């Protein structure tokens, strides 16, 4: 159920991603600004320096100039500076620069020579700035200075930026992923806790930790909501039960009066038929109320006093024997298939009631000539009892609904019954901690209702 990508969907992870991106972007802007300012400052200084030096050299007399130019080169230990002397036609006369670059204007501003200048002393310059001045005798003096330091500073700043980002973003993302695991684990715990609630066990609550954070606040809100829902449902159920309970007494008296009337008139009288119909209707009403009260009785019964080791195989045989004549009367085949079954911990009477209801239901909803199979199978965590029929089946969207009180599938409206049989079964199953599954009858048209007698000790 839980996927790795789930971690990235949490609020913490999203915040960390947003903050990470914002931080990285801001870092890039700041570093870019620093880079731009540093570069422009260095460029300005270099330009001024080169311009002044060119002017200075041009004003000196020849011997002094040559000495000064040598000093200019040798005093700069890193061989950053270079010069070249050209005649009016651009032919190299002296110095280490042998070619006059075309983009450097004579007496013009300091210009960049990005591809570098060819130097006779073998020093290759990546990027240089140069200025050319015309001397009084017409010759041209070119002075250059290596300014790749500006680029190098740029590179250093860029590297610093990359390191900074990787050192911030990578642990940030990792931390975010790890941090989001905690809340996610709690979300999963909450999801686990909601499953029984969705199945109808409204007594369950969401887990609340002592931290009191957002998740706890939400869980608290949901829990308060569940309290209210449970109270309201309890009230509705209580009202239903009270009505059922209160109506039973007058209904029983009504039935008694009709019965007495019938006895007085005798079996041959003309009123007998009507009275008989009245009795049948009253009995149907009483049955329905009895079933309703039985469910609430089962739901309120939390103790397990009647629980004991029970022979499931024997119970299945009893149920089979009980219903076989009914099935045969309806032209149905009722078959029991069971392997040797281990004893289970259950209330014998309730289990009989549940299984009888399942089989009775299957027979009721299977047309004459059909078949009903009771199959038991052994599983690790307790035996299963499948009751399969060849009736109309239960559509998937109605499977939850059929265990609700009074629910009857659309296709069975005309069949007599209280609509409470499966509700009784699921109430008994709940009391035992068993599960009732409703599925298609594999390879057949009907329904398969499975009671999983899960061993409480195995859970």
């Amino acid at each position, binding site marked *: 159920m839980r996927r790795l990508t789930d971690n990235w969907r949490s609020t913490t992870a999203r915040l960390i991603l947003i903050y990470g991106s914002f931080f990285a972007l801001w870092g890039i802007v700041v570093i870019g600004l620093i880079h731009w300012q540093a570069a422009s400052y260095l460029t300005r200084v270099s330009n001024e320096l080169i311009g002044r030096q060119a002017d200075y050299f041009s004003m000196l007399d020849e011997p002094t100039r040559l000495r000064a130019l040598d000093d200019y080169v040798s005093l700069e230990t890193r061989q950053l500076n270079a010069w070249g002397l050209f005649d009016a036609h651009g032919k190299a006369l002296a110095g280490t620069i042998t070619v006059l670059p075309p983009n450097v204007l004579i007496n013009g501003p300091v210009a960049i020579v990005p591809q570098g200048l060819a130097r006779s002393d073998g020093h290759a310059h990546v990027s240089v700035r140069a200025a050319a001045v015309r001397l009084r005798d017409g010759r041209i003096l070119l002075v250059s200075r290596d300014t790749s330091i500006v680029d190098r500073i740029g590179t250093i700043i860029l590297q610093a930026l990359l390191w900074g980002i990787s050192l911030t973003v990578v642990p940030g993302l990792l931390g975010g992923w790890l941090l989001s695991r905690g809340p996610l684990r709690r979300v999963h715990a909450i999801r686990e806790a909601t499953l029984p609630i969705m199945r109808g066990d409204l007594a369950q609550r969401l887990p609340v930790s002592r931290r009191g954070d957002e998740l706890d606040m939400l869980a608290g809100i949901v829990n308060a909501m569940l309290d209210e829902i449970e109270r309201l449902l309890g009230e509705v159920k209580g009202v239903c039960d009270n009505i059922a309970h209160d109506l*039973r*007494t007058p*209904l*029983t*008296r009504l*039935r*008694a009066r*009709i*019965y*007495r009337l*019938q006895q007085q008139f005798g*079996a041959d009288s003309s009123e*007998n038929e009507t009275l*008989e119909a009245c*009795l049948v209707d009253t*009995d149907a009403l009483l*049955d329905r109320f*009895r*079933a309703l*009260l*039985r469910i609430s*009785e089962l739901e309120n*019964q939390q103790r397990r*006093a*009647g629980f004991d080791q029970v022979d499931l195989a024997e119970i299945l045989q*009893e149920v089979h*024997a*009980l*219903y076989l*004549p*009914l099935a045969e*009367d309806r032209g149905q085949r009722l078959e029991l298939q069971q392997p040797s079954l281990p004893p289970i911990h259950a209330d014998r*009477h*309730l289990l*009989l*009631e549940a299984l*009888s209801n399942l089989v*009775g239901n299957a027979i009721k909803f299977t047309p004459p000539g059909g078949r009903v199979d009771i199959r038991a199978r052994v599983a690790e965590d307790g035996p299963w009892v499948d009751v399969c029929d060849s009736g109309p089946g239960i559509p998937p969207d109605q499977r939850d609904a059929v265990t609700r009180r009074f629910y009857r599938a659309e296709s069975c409206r005309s069949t007599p*019954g209280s609509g409470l049989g499966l509700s009784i079964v699921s109430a008994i199953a709940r009391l035992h901690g068993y599960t009732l599954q409703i599925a298609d009858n594999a390879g057949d048209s009907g329904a398969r209702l499975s009671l999983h007698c899960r061993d409480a000790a195995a859970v």
Partner: protein
Amino acid sequence: MPRILVIEDDDVTAREIAAELASHGIDTDRVADGREGLRRAADPCYDAITLDLMLPGLDGLSVVTQLRGQGIATPVLMISALSDVDERVRGLRAGGDDYLTKPFAPDEMVARVDVLLRRHRQQAQQTLLCVADLELDLVRHVVRRGDTQLSLLPTEFKLLEFLMRHAGQVLTRTMIFETVWGFHFDPGTNLIDVHIGRLRKKIDAAGCAPLIHTVRGSGYSLAQTD
């Protein structure tokens, strides 16, 4: 004429019980309090007792326990608003003979009282039950109608035994289901009818006078028709 002690604190229920029993020719005395009920129950003139479990003074369960403790064996029909199987089991263990849940159909109550009264009268263990030309031998597990031996399934045998032990009495479907199968839930009306139908087909074969009769609105009765 049989005489019954009704220990019941609810006036309406008590009146109902008395009226219904009177219409079946049974006399009743009524007591509303548990302690008083226990004192009167010792009187040997009563053939049976109906006992409400929720009583002022002394509760029904204690009444029946003390009654049996004094060696008084008058049959007791316990009547309670609690339909729980556990309650029933506790009531029967304490010494009650039958258990009926409120609200009850009067004919159901009368049928049960009737069974208790007759059981009280014929305590001797019979091994051969006879009704008309129908014979059921409990020892040899044989059923005979006239000269024909009938083959019955175990459940059918138990069902017939119950009907024959209470020949001439009305037995409700609930009583049959509780006694023959030992189940205490609502199996749906026609389940018992189907089982009775099967038995009837075997017992009342063509040409024989029918012995199993349907009592409309109530249940069944096995009796020889005159």
